């Protein structure tokens, strides 16, 4: 069906194009396999690095990735039941992310694409989060709130690219929650039976006054809030549930408020939430309330695909391959730790996989 930009190897593949995608920007090593024909998602294999204590050290993550990469790759191929020769392209998230972690994925991807003799496709990790959310929610032209351990960004499409309308001026929302949990002994692990430990702690809490709420124009800032919360905890450890509640309430509300400002500014009628923190029920609830007076729709992404995964990389890589963009020579596939989404053309927009 799709042939123009598709390399010859796909001819073996009953007219569909299959791309394997590799994710290794942060704590997850993931391999996904996506086809241009239903059921689209053929495989989703991943391993997450969970530190026994403290935060995530890039070097340790890279060592972990190197150990599991082969297994994850094998697992994905067996899930998909495709012959490696049926793969038309190898996509890899080259950034943004942590250097040592990115290098593992890039190395695997270069080797695989050379071995299979298929194009190597560079994928921007942030864009992949948007594309998987657009694909799964059915919302095609949304304002996007992207929140994860490393990112808090409000984006929307305009004139060929995803533009950044607002972002955190310092740390990300996920980073704030994890750091607070770590410093107060709530974690790690940061997520217990599907809930963040700060959410669990906040369940019995009430709002406390005196914490900074920082929204500057379209941007947010969380470092002052984190400092204030940690100071309040030191002064009065018994009030931890109230501190958890307030930290979360201010953190979430301010990110929702900048999303609301973007929505009013661009005049669109759809909102999606994506990234690791998108699995959070409370943040989803707030966004679904926010859109009402703006006559906009909000749909949540399935929890499974909120966090980092290889499927979103494969999906975005496939869209790139079908539109003839993003293909790089393996020897020039350099990682880009600070690769901004607004540097990437997205010629398929607003369509996605399966749209005619």
């Amino acid at each position, binding site marked *: 069906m799709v042939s123009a930009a598709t390399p010859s190897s796909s001819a073996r593949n009953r007219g569909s194009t299959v791309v394997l995608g590799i994710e290794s920007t942060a704590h997850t090593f993931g391999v996904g396999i996506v086809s241009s024909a239903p059921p689209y998602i053929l495989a989703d294999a991943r391993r997450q690095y969970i530190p026994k204590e403290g935060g995530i050290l890039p070097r340790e993550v890279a060592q972990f990735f190197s150990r599991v990469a082969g297994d994850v790759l094998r697992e994905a191929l067996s899930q998909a039941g495709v012959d490696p020769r049926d793969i038309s392209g190898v996509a890899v998230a080259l950034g943004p992310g942590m250097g040592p972690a990115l290098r593992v994925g890039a190395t695997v991807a270069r080797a695989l694409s050379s071995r299979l003799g298929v194009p190597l496709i560079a994928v921007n990790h942030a864009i992949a989060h948007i594309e998987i959310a657009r694909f799964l929610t059915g919302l095609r032209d949304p304002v996007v709130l992207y929140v994860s351990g490393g990112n808090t960004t409000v984006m929307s499409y305009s004139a060929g690219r995803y*533009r*950044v309308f607002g*972002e955190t001026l310092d740390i990300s929302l996920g980073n704030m929650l994890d750091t607070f949990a770590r410093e107060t002994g709530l974690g790690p692990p940061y997520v217990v039976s599907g809930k963040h430990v700060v959410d669990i702690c906040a369940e019995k809490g009430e*709002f406390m*006054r005196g914490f900074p*709420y920082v929204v500057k*124009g379209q941007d947010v800032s969380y470092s002052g809030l984190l400092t204030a919360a940690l100071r309040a905890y030191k002064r009065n450890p018994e009030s931890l549930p109230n501190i958890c509640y307030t930290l979360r*309430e*201010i953190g979430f*509300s301010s990110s*929702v*408020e900048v999303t*609301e*400002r973007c*929505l*009013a*500014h661009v005049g669109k009628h759809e909102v999606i939430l994506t990234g690791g923190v998108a699995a959070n029920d409370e943040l989803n*609830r*707030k*966004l679904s*309330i*926010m859109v*009402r*007076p703006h006559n906009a729709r909000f749909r949540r992404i399935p929890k499974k695909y909120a966090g980092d995964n290889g499927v979103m990389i494969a999906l975005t890589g496939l869209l790139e391959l079908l539109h003839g963009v993003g293909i790089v020579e393996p020897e020039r596939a350099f990682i880009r730790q600070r690769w*901004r989404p*607004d540097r990437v053309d997205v010629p398929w927009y607003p369509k996605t996989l399966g749209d005619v």
Partner: protein
Amino acid sequence: MISQFLEFVSSLDLLARGAESELRKGHYYGVPAVYKLRRRKEYMDPSLDSDLRRARTLKEAKVLSVASRANIPVPLLLAVYPSIGLLVMQYIEGERLKEALDRGVSGHCDLARRAGAILGMLHEHGISHGDPTTSNYIITDSGDLYIIDFGLADFTSEIEDLAVDIHLFRRAVSSSHARLAEDLARCFIEGYSSVRGEKARPVIERAEEIMLRGRYVEERRTVWKP
């Protein structure tokens, strides 16, 4: 009592609705007035919501009164009701600078110079505007220029905050008035510098930096060619 008053405000003609507030047109003791109501945000904890609306309403009222007292052409503050998030201010009858420029008003450089001078006066009094686009300047029938909408204004003397104002004006003219953008930006900065003297330079330099920093992406695409 409060609910009756809110009902009255809600019955006034809607001028505009933003993310933050609703603007309605009415009278206040016979004076043509704008009612700016910050609506309750249902997604926030009620305490956080009321704290924020109170603080933002009070801040905006304070900025307006400081600016008025300094003889800067801003709408006069008529009343403030922090607990319901309502400001009442003078209605400035006229045309937005944006519309005047769009229809090719004569003397665009002079207008930009005066707009820059007004921003310079605000900065002299430690006020950043937060959104000084051409939509937020109004030309009255008698030819006076006013600056409006202090919803994102703040008391600050930080170079960075002031530079963002300059940057925002420049970005606004380059997207809305591309053909005149260079003229408008140059004249705006002339006006700004005429008020601020020596203090203008670091702010203007920082504004250049912000443009190249890449947080505001449109500009970087035109300036920074890979």
